[in-house]
């Protein structure tokens, strides 16, 4: 047995005895997802809390981070084995967190040792929930035109302005935020700062979406004091951090193209509504063809995701490859939900009924329409691929 085989069998055994049975069922809605944070109530879902605690203590909420910062210290190969074993058990992700998927990698690259030690371990344990303050009402695709200002006041900044599309700002404890520290240069006048959402002068207002949910907020900053030691990287160098972090955000969003774990809801749903004919084929031949063609691309993208992660861990991925992943994964996810709606017929239109889980299907379908907008639109990703990978000239 190689060391990796040993690691695999030990990991499997540990997961078998530590992952509660409830945490091996597919995630049905956002209510099944653990986001952690100050307001997290372990008593509301004891198996979920036990799973988070067990994984957090091992550093396996962030298996490839160094142990000093609360991680598991695993090699890329070991991390892959852990993911594979979790998948084969159907184990849920113990913790969903923008701290893990977005801020963490940026801190590991740009943070000081003091900042890493202060912010990373609480992220790993799920104690602090983070949100992202990037977009503004007049800075969407053209993000670098952002205007929220940070005035120098000696040992701290005074931040004024407004952010929009701040995911879960009303539930988050801290924010990582892009602010303008200079008007001399567009990209070269941006700084990357962190602050507590309970700071004086911060307020949020949820935005009601077409899905009927409010996962996004407007965030208002009115004279918020932010100590300079909470700035990541140099003043006016925040765009470097922002771009690096956007790569990780795109990577995370592209994961949506993979669909969930376990039973394929598209196929199961289609069989449930349309039924199978005598040959065992879906009774609607055109729908069957559409689903089969979709599944080819979805499964091929599954291989692409594996390749991308392997190349990323080995430092072999093209720096703009996350744009390709984001583009393909989000377009695929929108396509999947269009097919789920087509397969579900009028069942999939029910908005409130108990049978529909309170309109889970149509609300999820509507939510996916933002996938190709948030984190940079599909069109922005195509621009990046064309210029940075294909090296086509600027207009």
């Amino acid at each position, binding site marked *: 047995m190689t060391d990796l085989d040993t690691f695999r069998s030990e990991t499997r055994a540990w997961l078998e005895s530590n992952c509660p049975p409830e945490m091996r069922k597919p995630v049905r809605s956002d209510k099944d997802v653990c986001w952690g944070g100050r307001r997290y109530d372990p008593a509301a879902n004891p198996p979920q809390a036990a799973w988070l605690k067990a994984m957090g203590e091992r550093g396996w909420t962030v298996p490839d981070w160094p142990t000093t910062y609360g991680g598991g210290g695993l090699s*890329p*190969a070991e991390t*892959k084995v852990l993911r594979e074993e979790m998948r084969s058990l159907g184990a849920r992700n113990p913790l969903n967190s923008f701290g893990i998927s977005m801020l963490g990698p940026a801190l590991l690259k740009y943070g000081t040792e003091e900042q890493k030690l202060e912010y990373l371990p609480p992220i790993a344990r799920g104690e602090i929930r983070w949100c992202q303050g990037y977009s503004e009402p007049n800075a969407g695709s053209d993000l670098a035109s952002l205007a929220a200002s940070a005035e120098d006041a000696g040992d701290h900044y005074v931040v004024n302005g407004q952010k929009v599309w701040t995911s879960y700002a009303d539930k988050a404890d801290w924010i990582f935020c892009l602010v303008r520290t200079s008007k001399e240069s567009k990209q070269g006048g941006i700084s990357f700062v962190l602050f507590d959402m309970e700071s004086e002068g911060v307020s949020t207002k949820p935005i009601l979406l077409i899905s009927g949910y409010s996962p996004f907020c407007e965030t208002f900053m009115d004279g918020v004091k932010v100590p300079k030691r909470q700035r990541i990287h140099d003043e006016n160098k925040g765009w470097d951090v922002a771009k690096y972090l956007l790569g990780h955000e795109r990577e995370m969003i592209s994961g949506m193209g993979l669909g969930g774990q376990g039973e*394929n809801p598209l*196929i199961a749903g*289609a*069989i449930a509504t349309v039924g*199978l004919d005598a040959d*065992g*084929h*879906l009774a609607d031949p055109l729908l*069957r*063809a559409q*689903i*089969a*063609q979709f*599944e*080819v*691309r979805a*499964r*091929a*993208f599954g*291989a*692409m995701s*594996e*390749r*991308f992660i*392997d*190349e990323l*861990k*080995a430092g*072999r991925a093209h720096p703009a490859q996350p744009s*390709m992943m984001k*583009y*393909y994964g989000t377009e695929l996810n929108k396509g999947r939900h269009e097919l789920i709606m087509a397969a579900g017929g009028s069942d999939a239109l029910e908005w409130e009924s108990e049978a529909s889980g309170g309109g889970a299907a149509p609300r999820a379908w509507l939510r996916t329409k933002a996938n190709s907008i948030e984190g940079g639109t599909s*069109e922005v*990703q*195509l*621009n990046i*691929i*064309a*210029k940075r*990978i*294909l*090296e*086509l*000239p*600027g*207009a």
Partner: protein
Amino acid sequence: MPLYLDDDQTTLRDTAREFIADKAPVSHLRALRDAEDPTGFSRDLWRDFAEMGFTGMMVGEEHGGLGLGHVEAGVVLEEIGRNLSPSPFLSTAVAAVAALKGTGAADRWLPGIAAGETVAALAIDEGAKHRERVECRAERDGNGFRLSGTKRFVAHGHVADFLLVSARTAGGPDDRDGITLFAVPRDTADLVAEAERLADASITARVTFDNIRLDADAVVGEVDAGAAPLDRLLRAGRTGTAAELVGVGAGAMDMTMGYLKERRQFGTVIGSYQALQHRAAHLYSEMEVARAAVLKAQQLLDASSPLADEAVSVAKAQAALATALSVQEGIQMHGGIGMTDEYDIGFYMKRHRVLAELFGDANFHADRLARLAGY
């Protein structure tokens, strides 16, 4: 195992890329076509392949080969695709070797393949569309068999040294049991192979067996249990075709990207227009996804994984779809010059069409995946 080429495989790719671009670029295909060459490939080139170790790369060391796998064969196939090199490599060095390996017929055929002396053809298809049914019949006759039926779309079938033929020795047309795979020497009496030139200038044969006599030792594997070597042949053939398709798509895309950076209209290079940039970027994405799907299938085949079967169909379908986009965008973005015979992009479109059809098109494989998934 990470899903990218390791150092040895990368070295092999660099060697194959340089060698094939030098010995068999698109001008080699064009020269064969213009000379109305009746063979369909160059025997000299095939011997060069043998010297490089390519013809025996999947043959075991005991038979004079290198004992490498589907990933390595795919590396060579991608370069063959990129250069549109006419070659019996896929049928002989990949699919036939995969079928023969581990059977009693291996000693007879594999050393010749490794040495570059023997070329194999695959006589599998019976109609104009690839299907999984076998109607060609082989009846017992003393110690041997009598084979009857017609096979189509047999690449190099008119010049190969032997043909791998799937035939029914028991059961009905759609049964898995009762298939037997035969290795039939082409000089067998009464075997008729009529050459047909295809749209891409390659030559395939329509092969007719009119009650021809086969010796018992023509059987590959076991009588009535030919589904096993046939599966190996089809998986290797489908995955190999997918790898060659990715090469065709990549070659066409490289040409097109080069043209976008060079052709000027309205006072600027056309590659600076966003309408074309977005289409180019989408094409790049589809090709990357296809490449990953193909490598995944190759790795799973080399690991003898039970997941390989479905991965092969994903790879063949996605490679055909992505490459279709590459050649279609290729001609459109080249504009009028892309329609001329003088320019190479049209050769890519024709080659794609042939490979897309070989061993089942994208619809065949999507349907196959659906059946395997129970819908």
